[in-house]
């Protein structure tokens, strides 16, 4: 009775154990990116850029070339790497504190310039690494360590909808939002990541996949409760969907 592996660690991940908290969906998203890289056969030509945030050590977990950018500057670094090595596949992996606060200018202009790079944007509505402070994406009323009475939009402003914002740029080719809460949504997120990388390979311009992700530790929820919280609270403020898919990307499907 011969048994064959039906599911195993992708080659594009190392054997390293991650430092992520139990049930943190950063781990699921890492695996999806690695599966896509394996399936496209691009492991040897892909360069990832790690952010500042909980994913700061991502270069230890991906079996790929990797660079580490200063906080929020991953799109600028990706721009340089891609322009001097246009045959490489270059992607950034960025949290919402990294991308939507300190790095807002970088991401908006990289998209606007139509840089032929891919950004995987992890929206967990909080600053995870630094202890659960409010992020630009923190929901109205959400309790964080810096909004102990809940985010008051009169005082702290409104959450930023990144996929919608980036979709308005002329240089963007593919901009979508997904989540990773159950096998079906995980499969859909993987398809989107794959299409984003394919769009880059076809030189169609900037691609961004926003993924609603959990932070059980700083939300004060169990990992399973945190996934429910994503579905019940985040997905209503940040609707899943395809915000910009240019015709050339549609024809890749």
């Amino acid at each position: 009775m011969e048994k064959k592996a039906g599911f195993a660690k992708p080659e594009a991940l190392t054997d390293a154990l991650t430092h992520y908290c139990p049930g943190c969906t950063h781990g699921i998203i890492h695996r999806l990116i690695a599966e896509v890289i394996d399936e496209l056969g691009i492991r040897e030509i892909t360069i990832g850029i790690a952010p500042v945030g909980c994913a700061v050590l991502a270069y230890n977990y991906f079996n790929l070339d990797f660079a580490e950018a200063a906080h929020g500057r991953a799109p600028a670094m990706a721009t340089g790497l891609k322009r001097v090595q246009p045959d490489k596949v270059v992607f950034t992996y960025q949290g919402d504190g990294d991308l939507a606060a300190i790095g807002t200018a970088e991401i908006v202009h990289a998209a606007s310039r139509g840089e032929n790079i891919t950004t995987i944007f992890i929206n967990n509505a909080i600053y995870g690494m630094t202890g659960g402070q409010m992020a630009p994406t923190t929901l109205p009323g959400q309790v964080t360590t810096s909004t102990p009475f809940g985010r008051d939009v009169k005082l702290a402003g409104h959450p930023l909808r990144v996929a919608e914002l980036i979709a308005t740029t002329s240089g963007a080719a593919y901009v979508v939002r997904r989540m990773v809460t159950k096998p079906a949504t995980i499969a859909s997120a993987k398809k989107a990541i794959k299409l984003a990388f394919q769009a880059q390979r076809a030189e169609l311009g900037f691609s961004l996949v926003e993924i609603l992700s959990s932070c059980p530790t700083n939300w004060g929820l169990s990992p399973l409760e945190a996934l429910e919280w994503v579905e019940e609270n985040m997905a209503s403020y940040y609707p899943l969907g395809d915000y910009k898919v240019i015709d050339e990307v549609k024809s890749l499907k």
Partner: protein
Amino acid sequence: MAKGTILIDEDRCKGCELCTTVCPFDLVHIANHFNAKGYRPSTLVDPEGKCTGCTLCARMCPDVAITVYREGG
């Protein structure tokens, strides 16, 4: 029905339970002992050999702790 089984690498597991709610046959449970990291790992409880190797449990795992095997591929 296809036959399968899973192998959980106990020392990768963080006991997060994400794999325990998706199995169509409810075969994945949290064990009563601790692993080297101090987490209670998940475990396959499949005395009747019901696992089909569907991979759903493995797809939920943030730590790639589950390998799925299928008979004959």
